[in-house]
């Protein structure tokens, strides 16, 4: 009877040893985070982003601009108009030679004054580092004279200001890259923003502290930490536990609990993205415009907004969000099965005995491609499938892993759910050029409408802001008329915020997140 007791004693000894090991681990690894303990007067903010950042190079990732570390020459304002930022004003006579007046009162984090020569060096670095920039900026030469930067483009290029809003063109001090080395610079770029990088751990976290001599005024908060967490539920819990003050991309199912907490609120602002259905022009089934128009009537946009997006979206009436200056003000198309049937009849389809539409004895069966990267898209596909069935159309849903490739490499699909940021930099020309022109990388449905091509061509050579707005609207109208895409909803940007954060709200373009005016109670 004594024997088993002895073995228990041994177990205790073993457990004790384990504990000692654990304790040893404690003392050796704690040092790095101990420093975070701050004095009471310091204002700290913690945010959680859903996208990871492998480095802090402003020319390859967006995180530096989002963390308030770097800034661009121009920015998009609240109403999606392009305004000056590091450049006070800009002008051009012929859309080829551009003059930018760089602000005179700006210093980099290391104290160096910002002048045109530094902007030039920075832009040259960005084109060097980023594959896609040379195509989008079309810069032939750069000239710096004091605070005036002259850009000459390789062709008349009215979209240049919009492209200079691109975070990849952030201005950094390239001199300091040479000083501190490329590796170090990638982790802590020297920019002009209200915050400078204090510590960066790849794919995990970035900590920033305020830059006291920030040109637009001293930042209100002292330090901020941004964590990258991919799991949506964990992000929501981070907000609920008050660990984090601002959390991007909350999961729909966690929203209720957050709304009930009186210290938290959910900010839901219109975004720049559109969820839509695109049609394959190479498919015999949907090459008839009447069929596409009929299908367009079978999208229940209200139900998508209320039941799939749980209210955090706006029903769509065109490629661009109606809140944008170049968005359309048309009425949102409602679900209309009867009219859809009429249109199908006009296209030569007749309803057969089973209630399904057929032409020449062949029932109308469509293949709809969807993908899971955006979880709401397969749901939209299912809703569409059931509504299409009411009009006698048989929709087969096919879930693919990589939609871009599948759509580009196959020609036998009919429809696809898709999602795109349709006006990333306060301008529609990106989307029109990539998704509708012959050479566009995202024109998987091989859309080629001559009237639309003309409008896009004209847009590409027009400088006047008002004319551009009108041309973009014209293009949107042509797109709707030909129903080459059917726009479903504009999803909102959903951000959970602790109410102690003041003077801050999420913005549609998701570029300018940490600002100098953000404050805490």
């Amino acid at each position, binding site marked *: 009877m004594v*024997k*088993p007791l*002895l*073995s228990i*004693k*041994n*177990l205790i000894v*073993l*457990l004790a040893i*384990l504990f000692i*090991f*654990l304790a040893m*681990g*404690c003392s050796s*690894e*704690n040092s*790095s*985070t101990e420093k975070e303990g701050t004095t009471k007067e310091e204002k700290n903010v913690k945010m959680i982003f859903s996208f*990871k950042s*492998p*480095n802090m190079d402003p020319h*390859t990732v967006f995180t530096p601009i989002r963390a308030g570390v770097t800034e661009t020459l121009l920015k998009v304002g609240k109403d999606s108009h392009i305004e000056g930022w590091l450049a006070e004003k800009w002008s051009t006579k012929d859309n080829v030679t551009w003059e930018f007046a760089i602000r005179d009162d700006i210093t980099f984090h290391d104290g160096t004054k910002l002048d045109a020569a530094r902007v030039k060096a920075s832009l040259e670095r960005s084109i060097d580092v980023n*594959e*896609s920039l040379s*195509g*989008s900026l079309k810069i032939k030469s750069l000239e710096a004279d004091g605070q005036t930067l002259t850009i000459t483009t390789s062709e008349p290029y009215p979209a240049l200001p919009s492209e200079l809003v*691109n975070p990849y063109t952030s201005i950094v001090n390239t001199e300091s890259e040479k000083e501190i080395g490329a590796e170090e610079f990638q982790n802590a770029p020297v920019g002009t923003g209200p915050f400078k990088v204090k510590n960066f*751990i*790849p*794919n*995990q*976290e970035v900590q920033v502290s305020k830059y006291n001599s920030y040109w637009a005024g001293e930042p209100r908060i002292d330090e901020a930490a941004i*964590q*990258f*967490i*991919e*799991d949506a*539920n*964990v992000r929501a*819990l*981070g907000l*609920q*536990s*008050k*660990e984090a003050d601002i959390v991007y991309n909350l999961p729909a199912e966690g929203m209720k609990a957050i709304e009930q907490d009186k210290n938290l609120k959910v900010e839901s602002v219109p975004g720049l993205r559109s969820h839509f259905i695109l049609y394959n022009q190479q498919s015999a089934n949907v090459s008839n415009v009447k069929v596409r128009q009929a299908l367009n009537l079978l999208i229940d946009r209200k139900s998508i907004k209320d039941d799939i997006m749980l209210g955090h979206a706006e029903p769509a009436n065109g490629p661009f969000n109606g809140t944008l200056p170049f968005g359309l003000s048309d009425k949102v198309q409602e679900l209309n099965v009867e009219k859809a049937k009429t249109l199908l009849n006009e296209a030569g389809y007749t309803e057969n005995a089973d209630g399904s539409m057929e032409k020449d004895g062949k029932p109308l069966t469509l293949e709809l491609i969807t993908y899971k990267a955006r979880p709401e898209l397969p749901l939209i596909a299912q809703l569409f499938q059931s509504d299409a069935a009411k009009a006698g159309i048989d929709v087969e849903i096919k879930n693919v892993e*990589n939609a*871009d*490739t*599948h759509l580009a490499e196959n020609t036998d699909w009919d429809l696809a759910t898709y999602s*795109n*940021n349709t006006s*990333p930099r306060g301008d529609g*020309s*990106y989307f029109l*050029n*990539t998704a509708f022109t012959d*050479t*566009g*990388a*995202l024109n998987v449905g091989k859309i080629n409408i001559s009237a639309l091509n003309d409008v896009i061509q004209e847009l590409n050579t027009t400088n006047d802001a008002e004319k551009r707005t009108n041309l973009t609207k014209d293009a949107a109208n042509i797109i709707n008329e030909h129903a080459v895409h059917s726009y479903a909803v504009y999803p909102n940007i959903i951000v959970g915020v602790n109410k102690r954060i003041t003077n801050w709200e999420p913005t549609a373009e998701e570029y300018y997140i940490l600002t100098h005016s953000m404050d805490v109670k």
Partner: protein
Amino acid sequence: MVLVVLFLSIFTFGLMKMAPGDPVLAILNSDEMIVTDADQAKLRSSLGFDQPIYVQYGQWMIGVMQLDLGTSYMSGKPVWNEIAERLPITLQLTAGALLVMVGISVPLGVLSARYPGKWPDQIGRIFALIGASIPSFWLGLMLIYIFAFKFQIFPSGGMGSVSQMILPSITLGFTLAAVYARLLRAGLIETLSKDYIRAGRARGVKEWRLLWLHAFRAALIPVMTVFGLSLGSLLGGAVVVEILFSWPGLGSMAVDAILSRDYPVIQGYVLLTGVLVVVLNLLVDLSYYLIDPRINQGKRESG
């Protein structure tokens, strides 16, 4: 070993190239930037995608011979650096999980074996059932919910401090522990009924000596065999736990690389895990000699 790795690399290279898609659109960031077909074609040929697969494989293999795994398409950094950045994170997670696993499974396994059919054994059985059937993402979420949200003892994610290590380690170690506790129990019960143990008892050898020095060692053999396998998979990265607690280890690196078709990173990862598994199994085989000297001497002595 070289053969295993060679076969592995040919196999993954082939599969990878057969899978639809390539990283070109992602490199050009077509979601935000104007990209034309010509841009794509240019990049494709500069990456060598227009060449036959065997040429691409040959080029990669020549690099590997010179210990050059190439550079990542996405980050532009050498694959070695990518791996070196993430390996310590995975090692830390593995170490934590093993600690939890040993801390739970050894006491539980020994107690269950000492008192088969009694309450410690019952508890062990229930625990094993729970441990084997709980998916780790759910366990992790529950742990975060309870400890980070309800009680606010531990942070919900991130790494660096020990308090941030505890939840991921438990999540990963718990499910493993369940299996090992049962394995250990089975092994111990079997060896405790062996003749040499009875002989030892008859000679008045103390029970704890018998248990820890004689029975435990013999019971470890099957445990070690399985251990070698799970250590390999642990070092390959525990994707679910890594993503849940935002520990960017090898597992999430591999998943990201696969999703973006970052071929050099995928190949480097497969090669590394292949080598790791082979080496680990070798070490496990060698450890048998240490644990049980009888293997070395043949089965001469039997108590």
